[in-house]
């Protein structure tokens, strides 16, 4: 199963000065991790219906996405993007609302967990079918360009598994044809659910796909926050400057189950010795400590602050009303007078 692990590379020493957003990014990562730990524990306690999907190990990549964006940009996140969603401005309480399914959340109990967004605020709401959001994002960018908006970009994330869908192919290709300011951040976390890389694709390196689409392609070590911020940040800048679409391929290991129902016992022990298996959050924290970027008390404060924010989010959401079948508006279209009524007989 390990045959597709990349040949071990020496970890490139981070020589560059610390990225200006390094600490801010760390705090978002911490927040996401704290939130998702709470979520997972609620799931185990039977307090969340449906699935819980966390981004453990993927926070550095994800936060670098969210933090590199600005107002006016469009973000199409996927399964493991809590850190990036938060950094791009999604209130934590909306996540809690969506998992609990309150009427007050952006999905109003109609959809749940990771299937959420606020398209009017540049946060597209993913559907499950992997790859489908790439072309949607392309269309948003075309429209913004068409009405003369300037300086915006779009960023979407995808897993190495999702890259094998036809939809992602069509989306990437059409992005290049339309030359939209797009960044695609693909994270190879070495598994699609239980399926290891060798049953997902057979190329040496997914970044080689970039060239075949007319994208510019870059690789990065997704356990290294500095690299994530640097390389994703630069890709965003290049897209903003009008260069062709950008593909960034990050390598990490998914450090949790596919969802919280999954014990990921199919992941062989040895893989945890690989460099890509390192926990980005721990690595970042260690770097902060080693380089004394902040003092221990501040770090402790951040941790407490994250915990407080998480508790608050759930406390608010839990008090809010749940949807009710009787009061629900069962109409799938906005043009209400055109609603079809197949069972008017009642």
């Amino acid at each position, binding site marked *: 199963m390990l045959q597709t692990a990349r040949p071990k590379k020496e970890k490139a020493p981070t020589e560059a000065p610390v990225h200006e957003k390094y600490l801010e990014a760390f705090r978002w990562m911490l927040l996401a991790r704290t939130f998702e730990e709470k979520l997972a524990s609620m799931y185990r306690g039977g307090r969340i219906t449906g699935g819980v999907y966390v981004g453990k190990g993927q926070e550095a990549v994800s936060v670098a996405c969210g933090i590199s964006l600005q107002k006016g940009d469009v973000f199409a996140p996927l399964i493991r993007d809590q850190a990036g969603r938060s950094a791009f401005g999604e209130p934590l309480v909306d996540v809690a609302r969506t998992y609990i399914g309150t009427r007050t959340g952006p999905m109003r109990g109609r959809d749940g967990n990771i299937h959420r967004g606020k*398209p009017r605020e540049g946060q597209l709401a993913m559907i499950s079918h992997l790859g489908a959001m790439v072309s949607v994002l392309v269309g948003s960018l075309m429209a913004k360009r068409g009405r003369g908006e300037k300086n915006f970009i779009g960023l979407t994330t995808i897993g190495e598994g999702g890259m094998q869908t036809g939809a992602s192919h*069509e989306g990437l290709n059409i992005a290049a044809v339309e030359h939209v300011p797009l960044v695609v951040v693909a994270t190879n976390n070495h598994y699609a659910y239980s399926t290891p890389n060798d049953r997902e694709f057979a190329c040496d390196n997914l970044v080689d796909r970039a060239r075949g689409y007319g994208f510019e392609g870059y690789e990065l070590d997704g356990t290294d926050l500095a690299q994530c911020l640097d390389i994703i940040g630069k890709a965003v800048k290049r897209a903003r400057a009008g260069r062709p679409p950008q593909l960034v391929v990050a390598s990490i290991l998914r450090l949790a189950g596919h969802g919280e129902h999954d014990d990921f016992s199919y992941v062989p022990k040895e893989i945890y010795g690989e460099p890509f298996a390192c926990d980005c959050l721990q690595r970042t924290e260690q770097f902060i400590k080693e380089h004394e970027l902040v003092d221990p008390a501040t770090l402790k404060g951040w941790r407490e602050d994250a915990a407080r924010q998480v508790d608050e989010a759930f406390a608010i959401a839990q008090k809010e009303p749940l949807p009710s079948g009787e009061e629900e508006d069962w109409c799938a279209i906005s043009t209400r007078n055109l609603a079809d009524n197949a069972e008017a007989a009642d």
Partner: protein
Amino acid sequence: MSVTYLEAIREAQAKLLRDDKRVFIYGQDVGGTFGGAFKATKGLAKEFPGRVLNTPISEDAMVGTAIGAALEGMRPIVEMQFADFSSIALNQILNNAGTHYWRTNISVPITIRLPSGGTKGSGPFHSQSMESLYAHYPGLIVMTPATVEDAYTMLIDAVAIDDPVIYCEHKYLYYHLKADDLPSEGMPIGQARIARAGRDLTIVSYSAMLQESLIAAEEIAKEGLEIEVVDLRTVKPLDTGTVLASVARTGRLLVVGESFPWGGATAEVIARVTTEGFHLLDAAPARINAKDTPIPYHPNLWSTHRPNSKVIAAKARKLLRE
């Protein structure tokens, strides 16, 4: 002057592009000097530069792109080269466009044009009528215009509607159907039309089968029996009220469609009439569909596969005797 069904579709798009800067057309071969496999966008790329765009052969991405543009305020019209190829975009249509309003409270005003239905020699992959697939799933409006006038006004309406519209235009009608000129206004969307008044039997139909039904009705009129023909216009929403009112007058129901027999529009009409208007019926309802095989290439086979005025008249006569 006379205008065909196909010209009406072109004219509607020209008007839409002229009147509404949010509109653009996206599809294979719609642009350049070519103007589409059926010329439904002929000349429009030149008249409206940058707004009639050729796409790669990527139906999924074409619809995805349209959805994204619609979310940002545009009103895209996607042309499928043939309805049959929309199978590739089905996921985006059903699961992305169709669910978006209900999930997020934000509607997706896209119009997807499906050149539909059988024509001579077109075979299994260039002849399909897919309205029943799209109507089955929630969140979509499915139009099936049967006249030149409706082809025109309904396409304009489709783009104005805030929700995703599947606009099934029938290729057989493209050249076969002509009108004197184009109306400035049509009937409201969602209302069926009494295409022919009668008292002895109601035929409910839509798209090309409406025309066959009308021919059958004229045929039978010579025999002294008057068939009322209802044109559904949209199969979703389906105007049960108009259908029931007609059956109340005639007591007899025949439903005719060109798509495959299992489920679909004809079954739906019969289910509605019998559940909601059972006592209006003096005889068993009946339906006619295409056969339950792929659509054949050779005209000898195709003419049997596809319902036509003769078959409709025969079935109508039988029903009228019951």
